Each structure stands twice: as structure tokens, then as C-alpha cells.
């Protein structure tokens, strides 16, 4: 035998199927078995061996269990392509379900359920009924899952034959594993059932499940815990009791059992009134969460994403544990990234020094992406904790002095934010920043430094020289930098008119005549017009006070509605992505459920959404609508007054969505593990929602484009995307005519476009 083994995967020269055919018909058992093995090997590598169907099935009638399993495996794969021949196998199946050996009985019923051919179904019901009542628990637990398989194919038949009722009875079975599988099957059926009455967890069922919880396998425990989460406790006392029964699971060695238990506890906390009890639960949850960090990196990753969620819901958890989240040198990048996020969330006045020295340490590591995130984190700490901002700035200055190119660039980007949070506090460091002018090659870093120069033009003696320096390459720059340069030059002019009249003139001329990007060009026109008609108004607009920024950008914060949904999904994919399940799943799996959930979400978010937005063509796709609702929700919770100011949001809600929708796309690309996948999903939604045009285009047009779109859209519907789309090219002069709106309304618009830019860039 041994010498044959490698041959299973070897490629033969020609007519392999013919060769196999001969062997399958051989009179020798060993030869036949080898042939079946080779068939399976071919199947594995993706070769089509369906033509051998009759010959393989002939070998099904055997006492050799291994052989039988192989044939069954073949059957499961190819039954669909040979539905007529499957009938050959039925007899053996039915006979096997009567076999004295329980293993064979179970195997037969398990396999039959996987053969999705109508002809088999006709013969499945009788054996299934028998197996559900089998006196061997192993057969019963297999039959329980088989009911779910049947349900998936033909719900009617499952109900008519009374299998659903039989399954419900199995919840009272004496063997814990049978209970667990019955729960698993029922829970799945409930999801796809139209009437939602297959599995309603009531007090009696809940008690039975709790009783089985202690004794079934780890996987069974997860199934039960998942279904427990569906139960709505009657009062606080009951919720407390259930939590007490679930708490011991936190000590389980399997991380997914722990997370499933945490989900139940987090959900039940909503019903518990006693603050004392909740405190106790939180205390008990902390150590197991920390312990999850000792598991395999992939499990750690899932845990960290969930810890991130739990921290947002219950900031009091893990307060003293920031150290355990310090990165190990050899953690995989995805774990380091998540740990960093959590460190920032746990950062407070007490641990900031420790954290800063740790972050500084990371800034000297090799992984560029991680280093940048660490530098960025320092900036976020500065914005979060006022008292520590000076220490953070000093660390950033130290890092700038290392002259490592990407560290310097990232540091400058975050320093711009610090300037926005604490205006006029750290002007003294501007000269240091300006020293690094030449090493900047990324648009974002350049844009940030230019913004700082423009904002503090009156304090920087040679501001005009610096701007001049950047202007040399004005035409080659990325549109984002161009926009910043434009604004900075105008600021400079307004602050020091004597020095820079010539510059501003030149810039506006170049921007309006030589640049094709409508955003840059249009902004130049706006400035020009503003400056020529009323310089005082221009001053009021361009040099107006900026709204302060908060540590977390609006796109990073999770709305309460979404948060509740994510808590209900702890440990699942949704909790990893921090997105509702509908955002990444095909609609068909939960279609009925999705509608229900979307309805709930809509109702919840109603007061936050203007009527017109609801009416916007959403293509009737509940999934998209749900996602949109969440996005809008994020949007309106943002810290920017421009967005919520009534004239803009009510007059043009659709164009208003533009930047935020895209903002979210970008946020996802930064946050989510998979660019392609997410984009795929989002595009899908965009297409259905009818706003996809905007969002998608904004995404393609790049950051600058989006900022422009948001701002302009509010003013006069000039939301034409950048050049890729041959939408009617807006004639800037024509549009200028529509600027009948008073300057106050333009003011938020101009500041906003840079604000949006900044936020997008940052978070």
C-alpha cells in the first residue's frame, strides 16, 4: 500500500478515467478501493470524474467502512450532476439506516441529507423519522442536523412530516450533544423560516438549554450560548440568574466559548438593573478577555476587534490593563494594529507616560505601516488628553529629529491636527517643522504643512518664501496639495497683503487657467470673486474660526444603534468588521431577517434622517438602506456644524451624502482587512441605493475631489465629479451666477471643504 500512496496525486499520461474505469470494475477488492481513492484524489485537484458515477456507486454496497465513506464522499459531490443515477444508491442508503452498527446508520443519514436531489428526498423521510427516534444518541444527534439539511431544501416537507416538532422534542433529550445539535439545527431553521415560529426560546427551553450547557462539547456550548442570546429575560432578576449560570464558561479553554459567553452577558446586562451586579460581571469579564491575548494570533485578532467594541460600550472595563496590550516584537501586523487601537482607547492621564514611551519605541520598528500608525497614535493621545498634549508634542519633535522620512511626514500630519485642537498653543515648534520642508514627498504631509503655514502666516516671517517655494511645482502637485496651496496663499494674502499681492494673483490665474481639475479651478474662482468684490467678507470667510476637532472622527465612532447590533453579534464576522452583517453578506441568506432588521434600524434612526433622504431612490434594497441609515447616522453625529446646519442638509441632502459615503469607503479601506472584498460589497450597495454614483465617484476622484464635492454641493449643486466622468462640464461662470446666496452660507462651505479633507486624511 505504502508504495502506491504518492501515486494518488500523480498525473498520468492519457485516458486516466478509462484506466480508472477498468480498475473500478476489477474483481479484486483492493484494486477497486485504490481506484476509488484515485477518483477522490482527482476530485480534490478539480478534475472532472463525474463520468465514472455508475462504476463508483456500484462499490457502495460493501462492509468496508472506509470504502463506503469514500463512495459517499463521491456521491455528495457528483449527485447533482447525475440526478437520474442517484436512484441506484437509494436502496443501499435505506438499508444502511437499518444497519446494526450505529456508526453506519448515522453515516447513511448524514450523507443522504447532503445529497440534494429531489429523488433522494422522497426516500429520505422514512429513514430520517426512524433515526430521530433511534435509541442510540449518536444517530439521533446526526439525524437532528439532517432535519436542518432537509429544511434547507424543502421547508414544506420538513413541516408536513412533523420533523420540526420532533426536533423540538429533542431539546428535552437526555444526551447533551443531541440537545446541542437540535438547538443548532433549530436556530438555523429559525433564521430562514418565514413565520419565525420554529424556534422561539421560552423559559422552558431556556432552562433545558442551561441544563445541557454544562455537559456538552465545547461546540455544543457555543450553539447553546448563541441561542441563549435570543432569549429576552422577563426581568432583571431572571437576567441575573442566567448570567450567573453563564459566567463559569468564561473559564473555558476554548476562546470561542469565552467570547460566546461574553456576548450573552453583554446582551443580558441591558436588562439588569442592579449596578452592583453589573460591576461584578465586568470584573469577571476582564481577566478572560486578557487571557484571550495568549491564544493563537488569529483568535487574538478576533478577540481584539471584539475588545475594541466592548470598550466602546463599557469604557470601565480593562482600565488598569493597558500594559497587556503592548505589542510584542514578533506579533503579526494585524494584531499589532489592533493592539495599538486599544491602547489609544485605554489611554488616560495616569498611563499616558508609559504609553508614550511605548509608542516612541514602536516608531523605530521596521514595518513602515505600523510605525506610521504609532506616530499617528501619539497625535491622537495629544488630542484626547489635554494635560498630556505637551508631552506628546515633545515626543513628536524627538521623532521629527530622527529625520526618518516617513516618520517625519506622519508626525507633521498629526501635528496639524494638534494645531487644530489647540490653536495657538504650540506655535513655537513651527520653525522645526519648516526645516523638513524638503523631505516631504507625500501629498498629505505636504498639504498639512502648507495648511499650518497658511494658518500661521502672520507668525512666520518667511511665510511668503515658503509658499513661493511650494508654488514652483504647483501644476505638478496632487489636487489635494493644490487646494491647500490655494487656500494657504489666500490666507497669506489676507494676513500680509503687502508682501503677497503678486503671489496670490499668480496663483489664482494659474489655477483658473491651467488646471483642469474642476475642484481646484472652482475654488480659485470662488476666492477670486470673493477677493475682488468684498475683501472684508473674504477675510470673514477664509480666516473664520474652525470648529474644534475631537479625537475620534465621526467615521470611526459607532452609532448607538449599530453598537447594539454589534454587541448582539460579538464573536461573529460582523464584530470583526464593525459593520452590520448585511453590509458584507449576500442578501439571500437572511432575506426575511434583513427586512425585519432594516425596519428596526430605520425606525431607530428616523429622527436623525431628514425626510428627503429617506425618499431618495434607494432601489428598495433593504440591506443598502440599512447601511445607508447607519452611514447617515454617523454623519449627523459628527462634530461639524456645517453638516447639520439646516439650509444645507435640507436643500440638498443627496449631495450632502457624497463626502460621507465616500469617507466611509475610505475608512473601510484603511480599517478593514480586505480592500477588495469590502469594495465589492460596498459597490454593490451603492449600485442599488441610487446614491452609489456619488459615493463611487467620490472614491475614485480621490480625497481632494471629495472635499470639493461636499463643499460645492451645498452651495450650488456643483458636485460634478472629476474628469473621469463625462458629466456635463460645469461652466464655472454660469455657476458663479448662482452664488446669490449670502456669504454666510458660503462660509461654512469653504471652511468645510478643508475640514472634510482633513478629517478624511486623518482617520
Amino acid at each position, binding site marked *: 500500500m505504502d508504495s502506491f*500512496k*504518492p501515486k*494518488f496525486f500523480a498525473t498520468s499520461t492519457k485516458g486516466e478515467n478509462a484506466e480508472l474505469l477498468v480498475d473500478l470494475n476489477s474483481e479484486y477488492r483492493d484494486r477497486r478501493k485504490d481506484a476509488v481513492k484515485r477518483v477522490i484524489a482527482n476530485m480534490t485537484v478539480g478534475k472532472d470524474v463525474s463520468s465514472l458515477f455508475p462504476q463508483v456507486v456500484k462499490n457502495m454496497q460493501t462492509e*468496508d467502512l472506509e470504502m463506503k*465513506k469514500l463512495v*459517499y*464522499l463521491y456521491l455528495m459531490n457528483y449527485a447533482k450532476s447525475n440526478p437520474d443515477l442517484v436512484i441506484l444508491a437509494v436502496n443501499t442508503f435505506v438499508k444502511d439506516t437499518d444497519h446494526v*452498527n450505529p*456508526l*453506519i446508520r448515522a453515516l447513511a443519514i448524514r450523507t443522504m441529507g447532503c445529497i440534494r436531489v429531489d429523488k433522494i428526498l422522497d426516500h429520505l423521510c422514512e429513514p430520517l423519522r426512524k433515526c430521530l427516534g433511534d435509541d442510540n444518541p*449518536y444517530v439521533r*444527534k*446526526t439525524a437532528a*442536523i439532517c432535519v436542518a*439539511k432537509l429544511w434547507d431544501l424543502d421547508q414544506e416537507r420538513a413541516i408536513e412530516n412533523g420533523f420540526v416538532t420532533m426536533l423540538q422534542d429533542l431539546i428535552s433529550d437526555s444526551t*447533551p450533544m443531541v440537545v446541542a445539535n437540535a438547538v*443548532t439545527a433549530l436556530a438555523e431553521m429559525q433564521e430562514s423560516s418565514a413565520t419565525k415560529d420554529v424556534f422561539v426560546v421560552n423559559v422552558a427551553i431556556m432552562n433545558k438549554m442551561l441544563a445541557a450547557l*454544562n*455537559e456538552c*462539547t465545547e*461546540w455544543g456550548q*457555543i450553539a447553546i450560548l448563541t441561542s441563549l442570546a435570543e432569549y429576552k429575560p422577563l426581568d432583571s432578576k431572571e437576567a441575573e440568574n442566567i448570567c450567573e449560570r453563564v459566567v*463559569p464558561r468564561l*473559564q*473555558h*479553554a476554548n*476562546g*470561542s466559548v*469565552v*467570547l*460566546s459567553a461574553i456576548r450573552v452577558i453583554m446582551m443580558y446586562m441591558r436588562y439588569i438593573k442592579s449596578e452592583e451586579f453589573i460591576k461584578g460581571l465586568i470584573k*469577571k469579564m476582564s*481577566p*478572560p478577555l486578557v487571557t484571550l491575548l*495568549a491564544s*493563537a494570533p*488569529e*483568535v487574538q*485578532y*478576533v*478577540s481584539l476587534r*471584539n475588545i475594541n467594541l466592548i470598550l466602546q460600550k463599557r469604557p470601565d472595563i480593562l482600565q488598569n490593563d493597558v500594559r497587556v496590550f*503592548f505589542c510584542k516584537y514578533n506579533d503579526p501586523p*494585524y494584531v499589532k494594529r489592533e493592539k495599538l487601537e486599544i491602547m489609544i482607547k485605554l489611554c488616560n492621564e495616569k498611563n499616558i507616560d*508609559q504609553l508614550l514611551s*511605548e509608542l516612541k519605541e514602536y516608531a*523605530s520598528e*521596521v514595518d513602515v505601516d505600523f510605525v506610521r500608525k504609532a506616530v499617528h497614535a501619539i497625535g491622537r493621545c495629544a488630542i484626547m488628553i489635554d494635560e498630556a498634549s505637551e508631552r506628546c508634542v515633545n515626543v513628536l519633535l524627538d521623532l521629527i529629529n530622527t529625520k526618518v522620512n516617513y516618520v517625519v511626514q506622519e508626525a507633521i500630519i498629526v501635528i496639524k491636527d494638534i494645531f487644530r485642537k489647540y490653536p495657538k498653543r504650540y506655535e513655537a515648534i513651527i520653525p522645526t517643522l519648516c526645516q523638513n520642508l524638503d523631505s516631504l514627498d507625500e501629498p498629505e504631509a505636504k498639504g498639512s504643512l502648507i495648511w499650518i503655514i497658511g494658518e500661521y502666516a502672520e507668525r512666520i516671517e518667511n511665510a511668503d518664501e515658503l509658499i513661493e517655494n511650494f508654488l514652483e511645482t504647483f501644476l505638478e502637485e496632487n489636487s489635494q496639495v493644490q487646494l491647500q496651496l490655494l487656500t494657504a496663499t489666500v490666507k497669506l494674502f489676507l494676513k500680509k497683503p503687502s508682501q503677497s499681492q503678486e503671489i496670490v494673483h499668480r496663483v489664482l490665474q494659474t489655477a483658473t487657467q491651467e488646471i483642469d481639475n474642476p475642484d481646484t479651478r472652482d475654488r480659485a474662482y470662488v476666492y477670486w470673486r470673493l477677493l475682488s468684490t468684498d475683501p472684508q467678507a473674504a477675510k470673514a470667510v477664509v480666516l473664520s474660526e474652525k470648529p474644534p476637532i475631537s479625537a475620534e472622527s465621526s467615521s470611526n465612532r459607532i452609532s448607538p444603534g449599530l453598537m447594539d447590533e454589534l454587541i448582539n453579534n460579538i464573536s*461573529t*464576522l*460582523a464584530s*470583526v*468588521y464593525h459593520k452590520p*452583517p448585511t453590509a*458584507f*453578506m449576500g442578501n439571500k441568506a437572511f432575506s426575511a431577517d434583513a427586512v425585519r432588521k432594516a425596519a428596526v434600524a430605520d425606525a431607530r434612526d428616523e429622527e436623525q434622517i431628514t425626510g428627503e433622504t429617506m425618499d431618495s431612490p434607494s432601489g428598495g434594497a433593504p440591506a443598502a438602506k440599512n447601511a445607508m441609515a447607519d452611514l447617515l447616522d454617523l454623519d449627523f453625529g459628527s462634530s461639524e456644524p456645517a453638516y447639520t446646519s439646516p439650509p444645507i442638509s435640507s436643500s440638498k441632502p443627496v449631495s450632502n451624502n457624497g463626502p460621507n459615503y465616500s469617507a466611509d469607503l475610505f475608512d473601510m479601506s484603511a480599517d478593514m*482587512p*480586505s480592500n477588495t*472584498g469590502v469594495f*465589492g460589497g460596498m459597490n454593490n450597495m451603492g449600485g442599488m441605493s441610487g446614491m452609489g454614483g456619488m459615493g463611487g465617484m467620490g472614491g475614485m476622484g480621490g480625497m481632494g475631489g471629495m472635499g470639493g464635492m461636499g463643499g460645492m454641493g451645498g452651495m450650488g449643486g456643483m458636485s460634478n465629479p472629476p474628469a473621469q466622468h463625462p458629466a456635463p462640464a460645469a461652466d464655472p461662470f454660469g455657476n458663479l451666477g448662482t452664488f446669490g446666496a449670502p456669504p454666510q452660507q458660503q462660509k461654512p462651505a469653504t471652511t468645510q471643504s478643508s475640514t472634510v479633507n482633513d478629517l478624511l486624511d486623518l482617520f
Partner: protein
Amino acid sequence: MISAFFIYNQKGEVLISRLYRQDLKRSIADIFRIQVISNTDVRSPIITLGSTSFFHVRHENLYIVALTKWNANAALIFEFCYRFINIGRSYFGKLDEEAVKANFVLIYELLDEVLDFGYPQNSETDTLKMYITTESVKSERAMREDSAKITIQATGATSWRRSDVKYRKNEAFIDVIESVNLLLSTQGNVLRADVAGQIMMRAYLSGTPECKFGLNDKVLLEKDPSNRRKSSNTVEIDDCQFHQCVKLGKFDSDRTISFIPPDGEFELMRYRTSDNINLPFRVHPVVTEIGKSKIEYKILVKANFSSKLNANNVVLTIPTPLNTAGVTCSVSAGKAKYVPAENSIVWKIQRFQGQSEFMLTGEANLTAMTHKKAWSRPPISMDFQVLMFTSSGLLVRFLKVFEKSNYQSVKWVRYMTKAGNYQIRF
């Protein structure tokens, strides 16, 4: 909820493919190969393409991949992948491409058993081994009699133990193995120090023994200050997990660890503590960069444990810059040499007596580099084993065995502390 399960080799060839659900086709396997295996920049173990999510774990030269179209329990899927790896290792010794190719039939059998319709079923190796075996030929009658027993066990409350175990001499061995994790800052401050402990048990006990196990700690999960008695012989455990044989409900109510052990070796308990850690080694590094062409090393290591004990296989890995041309060093014990492939000086000391200290002095000569980027100074890492020593101070107080037949049993306890992530920044 696992829709399909694949195993790939490093080239992206499918070695095992098993579909559990009809919501996807086998051709989806190609998508994973294109998007993940041939993609050099994969930054997450979970990837969602369209509405299909791919979960992957790398092991040896394999990709273990589970697919789902659902909002599946992500933690469960990864735990399952690792469980599968463990089962494979227990069956084949090593789960790599060769083992998978040679045993693909058995792997299909296992996959059929451990997952049904995408839901994990019994994954206890001991039980699986009873009815999924490499030697498939068995006499018919024996098979029939066995299978009734097997199925009861596979679904029963003690699915991990056969009822008919018999030994002439009843023995139980307990190994307390602690991994010390340390992160020491450049200034010599302890940034984090914790112990991840493991209590391994080898039980060779007849019948269905009920065991009770006690440690020198009250396992105070709630760190209640009023209960805290800081006497030297108790240990405060932050958190612990148990093998599924331990009755968690009982532990939660009165803190007793009671269980019916599986036969043979298993991990009874894992624990974590960060309180009062005795660090077995202190390292004082002085590393100075002299100009651009030379780095001077002075590394002092001191053993903190009792002089009656010895540490074995002590290894210090001291990083050197990428542009190191050569290293000269001398040590007061053991052997040190420069390993260019690892960019480090590896210093090995076979036997390290407690309370003693050793010194390495050396110089690394650097070649001129064109780019100016400063050396990132990765931490010094250390490896060691100290027998009969626990960093946490944990001790086994008792192990009681109760069985119907009331036999006498012999128990043995061993302790070992080894290095987990023992890193010293400089």
C-alpha cells in the same frame, strides 16, 4: 456555518477540498489562491470577497482555509482550524504537505466526522481515534460490539474517556510548566512581566476516577482587597481556564477543581498571573554605538533563583545591525558566536547555576551604508529552562483520586519554568 474547508500547499494547489454547503462551488478555491496565496501583501487572516469570507491559518507549509457565506462565529472558525491542526498532529505526528498527501483519505474521513453541515461535532482526538483509524481492517464482530460503546462515548457527558480503562499500577503525573514573559525597557524598568502557566497531567488511572486538585492559592478571581492575604505561600492567579473535563460550575461556586480525567496526557489547566513574579534572570545590557563603524556590547546576565537550582539551555540572542561585517566577543561562560543569517550574536550557556552571573563583551564592526536610517535596535531575547522552579511561586498542594474500587494511586509532580517572550530592550 462553515460552508467549505480547504487545505492548500504553498503553491496554492488544493490538497483537500470539502464542501459542506451548496451555497458555493469548488471553483471558489481558485479565488483564494489568487487573492491570498499569490498576494504578497495580506494583512488579515479574514478576507471577505463578495459575500464569501475566507478564514485562513498557516501551519507548516500549508494553508488551512475555512469558508463561509454567513455572519459566522469568527472565533469558533479559527478555534476549529487549530483544533483540526491538533487532530492532524496527533494522527500523523506532523501536519504538513507530505502528511496530508499521504493520508488524504483519512483526512476526508475525519472532516466528515468533525464537521456536519458545517457545524463542528466531536473533535476529541482520543474518541476519534477509536473509530477512525489508520488500520481500517477490523473483524466484523468486534466492530459491531465496539461501535455501540464508541457512539455512546462520542455523545456522552464524558466524551473524553472510555469506561473500561485498566492499569495494574495507578499513577498520575503532574507537570507544572510556566512560561515567563518579560518586556524590559531601555531604562531597565519592567514594562510587563507575566506568567502563562500550564498544568499538564498524565493520568494512568483505572475505571472512572474522580479527581480533586488543589493549588497553593484560593484562586481569587475577584481580587477582593479584604480577602487578600499577602503571605508568601499563596499565589494570586489573574485568570485560569480548564480542560473541558473540569466541572466549571463547581469551580465557580466553591473553587474546587474536580474532574474525571481523560486517559493519558492532557492539559488540565492554563492560568495567568502577573502578581509577584520572580524573574529568573536579570539582563543588564550596555550597547554603545561608536561612530558609524563600530558597536560595543557589554551584556551582564544574572540568575535570580536559588543557588541550589540550575538553568539549562540558556540562550541569549543579541541583535546586531544589518550591515555588520564581523563580531569579536568574549564570554565568561558558555559559547557566543555571530550568526549572520539571524543578524545576531547567539550566546549559549548549557548550565547556569542560581545566583551566578556571566558577562559578554564584544564589538561589532559595521560596513559603510549608503542610507542613513538608524538601527532599529530590536530587543535581546532570551531562552532558558529552570527545573523545580516556578516564577509565580505556584505549588500543587494535593491531588486526590476517588474511585469505586478504592485503589491506591501514586502521584508525581514536577515544576519547570521556561522563557516565553523574554525580551530586553536596549
